[in-house]
């Protein structure tokens, strides 16, 4: 199997399937992409993948920036990749390069190619109007400049020029089609997944690899077989009816965010706080839940919205409540071989719903505490349904059902919310770690409820 690298058909190398695209590019002499962290945090290795534009516009393309340190080589089978080496032509630097270079946007220069790639994708983003959004570079870290000149460069850049890169977007993009190589399979059906899993003890499912590749790069885990879910069309659904919304477990966060214009406010608050754009372009909703991490940000949101999961395995498929899914620290209901097919959120959505995240850094950080509160009230202001869920305060993401049950039937007012805080305080026993003390976490579980009340009541006042 081949892939297209900087416009040229390139043989996908044999060898260790856990080799990252970054390591391979650098070994090939394409050293413009740098390693700063090898865990998708710094963006110095950013490359562009040519991907289908949207579900509706499959015949058109877009440039999607990703961390090449989190892409394993076989994942690129059939894909199309651009690295920083492709951007400057004989005519000179591209607009993004010129703007960053001339405006003082590079100092040591090591992170710069990554910024260039993210901003280039932003310049060529279909449908963009006005200046480039600096937050498109939210997955790129710079230790030298303090970002101001890079921001100014972004704001100075207008529409994409009429060039070959622009023309490429009018052509279809490759999709992830079934593929198999040594120690890496990308089957097209769930049945094949289950067979492979049964036949290969120790095999591991992988979707966007934003977690799996970190385990590979930093914790040195090696698997006899990786089974990619990327060619499973069943995991790519996005269907909304009057009664529910079903989101395929294999959709990346970006693929959920961009078409879902009518998403509730809590979801719109959650998207930009979830990791960084580079990670959101790759990380899947199913993956975020399946890791069972107590600090995954999707869980508290979906718990408060009373979501369910469709789980499939060799013995069939079933629906489970997300609130029953998390068993213990990084342990879930998923039995060996099973995977999440989709996430279903019931409608109507509760009208009072907010997502909060407390972290040391406001963007692209891991939660100290994450919380989602979702209340539905009747015309008389009585609470009919309550969802109160947290991340970062226990071994698993949790719903505080005692507080939820107590709230049902109560008036939506300060007194009720204060009582809910008291119940939450007795229900949770968070721990100390490097992100925050137990005392702070416990204080936040209550304080965020107070903030929720304060901001909602102020908004209605």
């Amino acid at each position, binding site marked *: 199997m081949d892939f297209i690298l900087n416009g040229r058909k390139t043989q996908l190398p044999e060898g260790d399937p856990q080799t990252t695209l970054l390591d391979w590019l650098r*070994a*090939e002499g*394409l*050293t*413009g992409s*740098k*390693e*700063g*962290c090898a*865990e998708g*945090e710094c963006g*110095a290795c950013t490359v562009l993948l040519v991907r289908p534009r949207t579900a509706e516009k499959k015949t058109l393309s877009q440039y999607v920036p990703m961390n090449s340190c989190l892409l394993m080589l076989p994942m690129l089978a059939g894909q199309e990749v651009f690295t*920083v*080496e492709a951007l400057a032509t004989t005519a000179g*630097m591209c607009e*993004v*390069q*010129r703007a*960053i*270079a*001339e*405006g*003082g946007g*590079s*100092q*040591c*220069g*090591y992170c*710069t*190619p990554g910024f260039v790639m993210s901003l280039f994708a932003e310049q060529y983003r279909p449908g963009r109007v006005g200046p480039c959004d*600096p937050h498109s570079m939210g997955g790129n*870290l710079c*230790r*030298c*400049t*303090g*970002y*101001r*000149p890079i*921001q100014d460069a972004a704001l100075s850049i207008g529409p994409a020029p009429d060039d070959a890169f622009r023309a490429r977007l009018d052509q279809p993009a490759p999709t992830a089609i079934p593929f198999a190589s040594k120690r890496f399979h990308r089957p097209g059906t769930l049945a094949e997944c289950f067979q492979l899993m049964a036949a290969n003890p120790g095999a591991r499912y992988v979707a966007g690899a934003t977690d799996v590749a*970190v385990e590979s790069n*930093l914790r040195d885990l090696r698997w006899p077989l990786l089974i990619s879910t990327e060619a499973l069309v069943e995991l790519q659904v996005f269907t909304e009816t009057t009664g529910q919304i079903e989101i395929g477990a294999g959709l990346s966060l970006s693929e959920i965010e961009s078409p879902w214009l009518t998403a509730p406010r809590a979801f719109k608050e959650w998207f930009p706080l979830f990791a960084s754009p580079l990670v959101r372009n790759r990380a899947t909703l199913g993956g975020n839940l399946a890791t069972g991490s107590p600090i995954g940000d999707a869980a508290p949101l979906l718990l408060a919205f009373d979501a369910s999961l469709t789980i499939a395995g060799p013995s069939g498929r079933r629906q489970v409540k997300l609130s029953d899914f998390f068993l213990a620290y990084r342990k879930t209901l998923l039995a060996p071989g099973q995977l999440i097919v989709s996430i279903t959120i019931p409608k109507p959505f509760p009208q009072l719903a907010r997502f*909060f995240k*407390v*972290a*040391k*850094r*406001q*963007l*692209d950080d*891991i939660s*100290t505490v994450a919380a989602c509160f979702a209340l539905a009230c009747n015309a008389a202001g009585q609470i009919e349904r309550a969802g109160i869920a947290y991340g970062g305060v226990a071994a698993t993401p949790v719903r505080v059902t005692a507080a939820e049950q107590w709230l049902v039937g109560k008036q939506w007012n300060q007194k009720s919310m204060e009582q809910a805080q008291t119940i939450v305080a007795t229900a949770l026993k968070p721990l100390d770690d*490097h992100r*925050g003390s137990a*005392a*702070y976490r416990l*204080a936040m579980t209550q*304080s965020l409820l107070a*903030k929720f009340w*304060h901001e909602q009541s102020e908004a209605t006042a």
Partner: protein
Amino acid sequence: MSNVGQPQPHESARGHVTGEALYTNDLLNRFPGVLHAWPVMSPHAHATVTAIDVIPALTIPGVIATLTEAPGEADSGPNRHDEPLFPTEILFYSQPVVWVLAETLEAARLGAAAVNVTYNQLPALVTLDDAIAADSLHSPPLRMNRGDATEAIAACTHKLTGELRIGGQEHFYLETQCALAWLDESGGVSLHCSTQHPSETQEIVARVLGWPKNRVIVECLRMGGAFGGKEVQANCWAAVAALGALKTGRPVSVRLPRKLDMILTGKRHPFLAKFEAGFSSQGKIEAAKMSLYADAGWSLDLSEPIVWRAMFHADNCYNIPAIDLTGYVVKTHKTSQTAFRGFGGPQGMLVIEDIADRIARTLGLAPEVVRERNFYREGDVTHYGQPVKDAARISRIWAELKESSEFAARRTAISDFNSRHRHTKRGIAITSVKFGISFTATMFNQAGAMVLIYRDGSVQVNHGGTEMGQGLQTKIRQIAADGLGVEASAIRLMPTRTDKVPNTSATAASAGSDLNGAAVLDACRKLQSALTTVAVELLKCATVKFENGEVHGDNGAVIAFAKLVESAYRQRLPLFASGYYRTPEIHYDPATGQGRPFFYYAYGAAVSEVELDGFTGAMRLRRVDILEDCGQSLSPLVDRGQIEGGFIQGAGWLTLEELVWDAKGRLATNSASTYKLPSWAELPEVFNVKMLERAAEPGVVFGSKAVGEPPLMLAISVREAIRDAIAAFGAPRLIEIDSPATPERIYFAIERIRN
């Protein structure tokens, strides 16, 4: 001048944005057969090594060799030789014991895992408090004083005592430590190394190999950031690479992946400060006593001069008649803390700024009033006996910045906002910086250069400075272009090499362009002077002017620089020159704590405005205004970058970046996902940066001033604005908050003030 003083993009900007600019590790595939190294790391913070068995490693496919000894002295300690490469006593968690070389990094790692080392675990001093209690010090306490502070405090109307804990900071240069060594063609070893101090890297490599220095060449192309972290701590990895090359005959690469870099290399020193101060009812500080405990980690490194610099800056901009400072270089079983932009200065300044705010809140005065009342005036002398040159600039900058930032009006607007919001409060603060420029070890204040002109008029410039992103090469090119009177495009800046200019100093202490720029200018002037003689004859004129690649006679005649050079060659004149510079007038005696350690001071001030969320302690930086004294800026775009970047880095240190070690001495924040440096969210919503006008500094190259470090300390204004906002949540009282002011610390400080 057509180059100096012009805003020019970074000399390598094109290379940066295209990915063509090369860093040490980008060169690997130019070295066939290169081996990769991985350390065997101790699982204890303190232990003795009782046995080592490397044989199992050699059975791992791809493993070529292990390193357990050196032909020379196996120690990379820069001053005191206290950093054994192959230690028998382990002094910090993860300390390398043995190195494994293999065909791939993976094989080296597996080989290291196979080495059997047995340890006898010993009790470890992990926390600063435990080490202080155990009297664990690297050196006797350092002292500096003026007058009798104890007596003066006793005589004061008001007194306070307090403590401040100051966190360290990870450099997080995007390019981690790396070195590449190979045996050259004539009996020597050559290295590419990401180092701020190629000459010292050369020295350590020579020491470890047991060779004279002339057999070692170190080259630094450029660094992907350094910030002090590669001033001495690049040496160890270079020594391992050289040792590996010598043992195997093959090129050897040592590159620390991020986690190794974080757990093995030193950081900015965490400090504990204990202080007392006496002051008048008007807020005048009459006397101060400070004990500064620096958590130096396992080896001495540069900790002594760092603590000295903290003591030199414990006055910041304030004239304190009686002062008594004691500095402790505390030995703990942690990474060996090292140079980091500001070099102790930030910690010293933070303490006195913390005290200033405490005095203000004790007296019910605005903090800016207390600060202003204590400023040095013209003619004042510091506690170490140095006259405060240009002291009037402190007040001038203060006044200009207060005006341009609309400080008074914003104070009123903020009070108004705060009275209308119960859970959200804003705060504002103005703080200033006086930072001494020069290495306090006087001998390092020298630099050399070598400028070569070829017959076609093209020029190569060599000097001892290294490029780490700070724009040194950009400035040097401007200096050389004007120094020779040629176009900037005629000049090629050469990578820093120890075989071009010997015995150089580290590129550090903000002095890179002061020292190397002056040395390059010296060489250019020698060459220009020689060429002038030729030109005057050729053009038949009395005087000539070199400008943009042409030489103009006072009679109107013109000759191209290249033609003049060719004529000089034909007349058999040398077309190369060395340049040299040493900073005049500086001296310092550590025994008495007195002298003139600094050639001049760099001044600046900043106003920061923040907003705090009382529910979470989250902080938003709303606006920053900076006025910085860069002298006559050599390169305004570069200097602005230093000011902005330094400020944000300082804000990260003070509000966000937190190092956490666990009880075993393991660094818990050992990756980019657990240690957070500023991202887009930390960029202030409004960021106004200006440079002081009419500020040329006599005696410094083209009237410029150093700018690398001083702006970092302007970020103290962010911390002080946070304290101002915290105060708005309750009744007036002291705002005690340790550093960094993370959301958690802010939240609990608000809770204290509310109750």
